[in-house]
């Protein structure tokens, strides 16, 4: 590694987590450069979501380090990591169900607030203006994911595909540098998947985000991601561009269960 190179956006160095005797993620290392569309794949139970939980601070790694823009983030609480610029979506959708679609996205903007709680409780002009500003920003984001027509609906009332897109909008509202998407295409039909691919690409190209995503749909991952890491039983078994991953015998074995 040369000295002049800026630090990678995200760098995992031999990140490991053990739950009792079970090693869920075992010495996984990879680097994500700015502007990457990065894929994290593997069979069920490979440790992909645990990996996300390590990066976003839900779990603290047993050993190894996780660095974001050169600063160590392992062991920080999730809200601090979100404040630094990493935001995620969830595999099992976790919206704020009884809030409206717009409010869900506004909550995402909350970490950029500047007014104090006191000015909110006394309803001062600064707090009102800031709230209006965040609502405008949320409306913009709803336009990006094409949900502006349901802005006032209760988020639990949305169909599945729209709920997934809403989660992406909510994560985008935190203005992250790195966006983690946990199975964004799960439960979508082929047309919705195509639209989602387009949206994710736009998020990278037009909004300048770095994206790390977990996905089971191979066509989706191979069509979208430029670099892929494959996990199996918590271990990293392959790393590279889609073409080499597709031919990698270890990956084929992991998915089809054959001996190499």
């Amino acid at each position, binding site marked *: 590694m040369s000295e002049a190179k800026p630090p990678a956006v995200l760098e995992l160095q031999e990140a490991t987590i053990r739950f009792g005797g079970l090693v869920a993620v075992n010495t996984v290392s990879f680097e994500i450069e700015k502007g990457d569309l990065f894929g994290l794949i593997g069979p069920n139970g490979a440790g992909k979501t645990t990996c996300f939980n390590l990066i976003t601070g839900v779990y603290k790694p047993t050993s190894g380090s996780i660095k974001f823009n050169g600063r160590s983030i392992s062991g920080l609480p*999730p*809200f601090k990591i*979100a404040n630094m610029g990493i935001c995620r979506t969830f595999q099992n959708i976790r*919206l*704020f169900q*009884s809030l409206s679609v717009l409010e869900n996205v506004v*909550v995402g903007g909350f970490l950029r607030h500047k007014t104090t709680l006191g000015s909110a409780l006394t309803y001062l002009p600064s707090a009102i203006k800031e*709230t209006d500003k965040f609502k405008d920003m949320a409306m913009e984001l709803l336009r990006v994911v094409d949900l502006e027509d349901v802005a*006032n609906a*209760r988020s639990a009332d949305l169909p599945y595909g729209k709920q997934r897109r809403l989660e992406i909008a909510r994560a985008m509202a935190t203005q992250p540098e790195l966006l983690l998407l946990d199975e964004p295409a799960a439960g979508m039909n082929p047309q919705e998947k195509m639209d989602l691919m387009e949206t994710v690409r736009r998020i990278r190209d037009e909004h300048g985000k770095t994206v790390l995503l977990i996905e089971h749909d191979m066509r989706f991952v191979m069509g979208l991601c430029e670099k892929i890491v494959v996990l199996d039983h918590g271990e990293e078994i392959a790393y590279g561009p889609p073409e080499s991953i597709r031919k990698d015998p270890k990956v084929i074995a992991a998915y089809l269960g054959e001996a190499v």
Partner: protein
Amino acid sequence: MATVAHSYSPARFWTVRLASVVAVLLFLGAIQLLIIPKLNGYDVRILTLALLMATLSVSLNIVNGITGQFSMGHAAFYVIGAYASGKVTSVMLDKSVHMNPQLWLLLMVVVGAVAAGIAGIVVGLPSLRLKGDYLAIVTMGFGEIVRIFINNQDGGSSSLFHLDIGGSYQLKVGHKITEFWHIGLLLVITIAISRNLLKTIHGLSFLSTREDELAANAVGVNTTMTKVVAFVLGGALAGAAGVLFAHYNTTVAPDDGAMAQSFLIVAMVVIGGMGSITGACIAGFALSIVPEALRRFPPIGAIDLLAIVVGIIAVITLAGQLTKRSIDQNKGWSAFTTVMGYLFCLALAVAIWFNFKSTVSPVIKVIFIGISLASIVALLLTPAKASLPRFGHFSVLVLVLLAIKVPIAALLHKIPLVENNLAQTTYTPSDLRWALFAISLIVVMLVRPQGILGHYEWSWDLAARLFGRPSAGKEVAA
């Protein structure tokens, strides 16, 4: 196409703010100067305590409803505020400090709110790790610890620092400073704070903590901090209410913070609708007036009560059978229930007239007439008259109940075991208030688990929709 409506315009803001403050003060002042002197002491006391309970209920709503942390020790904050300020007043006012009572009360409100707020941090800290039932148990324990601690603080050997706050007797504050309008103002402030919170982005961070803590944390909301702030805010407002109570009642007893009191406040929030300020306020007011209103009814015999309970069970079973046989869909039946609905509205109108003529306390009179008038208006004047047959159905069931109650009671009198043991027993209806709360809680939980108002708040928009004018920009997409 939905757009974000901007509520802020700089020129009007301060005018509206000033006008609303003046309007609130004028309104409270008018009640204090024009209406309160005309009421007797009993009525003033009922009204004042009802407003206090409404304040407690709205302040608990910040913790239970808005932030979703189920706290069952809210009365503890109330007595902490009451005792902290009461002790200071009894020791200092007119002995070492001579001060305008109004200013002194303001100072005491600050003292009580700070004391209760500190207690809020103490309870808020364990809530970092506990959720749901576990948190409820911890807060319940906190309430009991406070009560038992106060019980033992009589300056004797079992007291900490030999602090004398009356122990299991009472703390005598000795100064009656609080007036009706002080409590009214505190209620308005509590409602305003809750509403302001919900109108700004800060409120959304509280709501998101209620909805999904993990997700809220993942988008950068410091949920720990939010929960502690909610406990401090709710606790401080309850403490302020306690201060006003101490300087109104002039004595404070440990049992003012008993678990029963905490349960009552929780019941108010739950019945009103978790998270609804309007619901908490109305339920707080109603649940403290109802036991008093029940006092005007004559004592009821235990056998009659038993007959009513048996009758209700019979009627509910009957109603279930009627619905099963789909008599509800029968045209003749629905015409009949509609007519019965009209008849019952007429009966309500007659009841209003008699109530107006009667000599009961004006507070209860006004509230009864208000509720009855509101029901009649809602049933007859709103365009959606679908509720009228339902009301008629209900009235038929009540009539059936009244009819079968008499033979059931006669039957019960014939059973020697019941006759010998229960015939002489009577209850005053106000003694049955806990049973009444329990029943209303059960009914609300069965019929409307989200509480009477759910997440709704009172607004002119809601009123307009009730009267059939669809409001703009509220269409819900499929």
